[in-house]
């Protein structure tokens, strides 16, 4: 005689199994379809995928590359992280060292509100502040948008890294006559090297995948390599967005190549961030 309780337990187990298998299958499907379709386009184009320019609507085959957009992505994200990292180090340290203070609580609340800013709003704001006065979209505007995205993210990560340093090392550092700045540069940074590197890489990965902040600010230069800060460019994300909205099948199809490129860059950075954490730098 099978009890009601046993039936209930079995039902739960079945539901859990079905739902989680569906979730995992969908997740797997996403990765597989990126790889399969992207590989198709990649094999068609070879190395030119990374250096060429996207196909024109009139082409018959999805032949081309993502070169200029890739460069744009790397430059804007790189610049954003370049500025965000030192700021996050100092402020992350500050927030942890002076934790109890009221002032610090207020400062942290202010940073949290920056975190909640929708990325599409950032785009609009930078558009108004920079693009309109400069009369052009630009790499600079794109970088600033990504900086606004990166700052609260990296600050939170770094604050976590710093708070996991055992208090005893900090006390030892103070006890040998280091001031706060000395403690940061000579003890804290040294101890948390790998944690910081991992957080930095992760932030870079997420910033490179952003579309909305750069959508209005970086421009639409998909076919030429602009490396001047004050000229428009594009990112892989805006490229994919453009191709996806294109009515021309050959361009829409080509987007798989751009998707694969972005995916591989993201995968590389994500893996690097995990590996770096375990390594003694």
């Amino acid at each position, binding site marked *: 005689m099978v009890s009601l309780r046993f039936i209930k337990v079995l039902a739960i187990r079945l539901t859990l199994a079905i739902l989680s298998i569906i979730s995992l299958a969908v997740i797997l499907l996403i990765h597989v379809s990126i790889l399969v379709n992207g590989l198709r386009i990649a094999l068609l184009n070879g190395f030119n995928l990374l250096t060429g320019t996207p196909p024109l609507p009139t082409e018959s085959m999805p032949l081309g590359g993502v070169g200029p957009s890739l460069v744009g992505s790397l430059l804007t994200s790189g610049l954003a992280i370049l500025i965000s990292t030192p700021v996050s180090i100092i402020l992350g340290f500050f927030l942890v060292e002076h934790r109890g203070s009221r002032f610090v609580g207020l400062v942290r609340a202010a940073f949290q509100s920056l975190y909640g800013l929708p990325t599409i709003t950032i785009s609009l704001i930078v558009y108004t502040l920079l693009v309109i006065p400069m009369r052009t979209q630009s790499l600079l505007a794109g970088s600033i948008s990504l900086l606004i995205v990166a700052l609260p993210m990296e600050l939170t990560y770094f604050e976590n890294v710093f708070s996991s340093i055992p208090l005893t090392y900090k006390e030892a550092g*103070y006890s040998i006559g280091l001031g706060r700045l000395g403690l940061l540069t000579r003890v804290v940074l*040294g101890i948390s090297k790998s944690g910081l590197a991992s957080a930095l890489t992760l932030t870079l990965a997420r910033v490179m995948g952003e579309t909305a902040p750069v959508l209005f600010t970086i421009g639409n230069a998909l076919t030429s390599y602009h490396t001047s800060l004050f000229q428009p460019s594009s990112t892989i994300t805006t490229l994919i967005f453009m191709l996806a909205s294109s009515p021309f099948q050959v361009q829409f199809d080509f987007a798989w190549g751009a998707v694969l490129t972005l995916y591989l860059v993201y995968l590389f950075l994500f893996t690097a961030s995990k590996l770096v954490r375990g390594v003694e730098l």
Partner: protein
Amino acid sequence: MRCHIEASGFRLRINDAEILKGVDFCAPKNSISVIVGPSGSGKTTFLKTINRLTELYGKVEWSGDLKLDGESIFTLNPVELRRRVGMVFQIPNPFPHLSIFDNVALPARVNGIARGDSDVRSIVKWALEKAMLWDEVKDRLDKRPNILSGGQKQRLCIARALAMRPEVLLLDEPTANIDVVNSKKIEEALRELKNEVTIIMVTHNPNQALRIGDYIAVMFEGRIVEEGPVREVALKTRNPITQSLLSGGW
């Protein structure tokens, strides 16, 4: 008898809780003063206040006097104070990201004690010799401290504190987590060091207090209840707290 570290009626409140309730204490120059007392009596707090570590992580209020060589420690620059007063912690904490050499060299470099590389090298050698660790690490100075045993790590920490050429050395139960052999080595090192440095040590081990202490102070519930030369206190005390602490351990 000149007190190198002197406290009179010293009270301390941390985050609105009164930990020290009127401490009278004197550590004479070039001697080993031992502080004993039950857990929670405020020994570690007192020690960490002498080099002003307590104020770094909490709201601290004080009254009374706490002096280094006649000067109130609260009128001194805290960073400068911590150069003159070294500390060794209960659980050995050498910096894991620096080599053995750099662990000892850092205080010397940071405080301007050493000018130039050869100066640094001689101070590191001196400090490690005084901590009775030189022979064991002289071939491995570039390695990280994680290869050392607990006892060796603690001696490294002693060397690190000595590298600043401090006037006073504070030790918070330095051998509590160390094996017997290393403990003996550390006690030997301290006995020799007292000629150059005034030593204040917190200990849980009554035998250790009797072995190496010159003066003893008994702390109970935030106050010093008895103080004096070790032999005198041990033999003639009538204080029940002191008697129970010294006879059985706590």
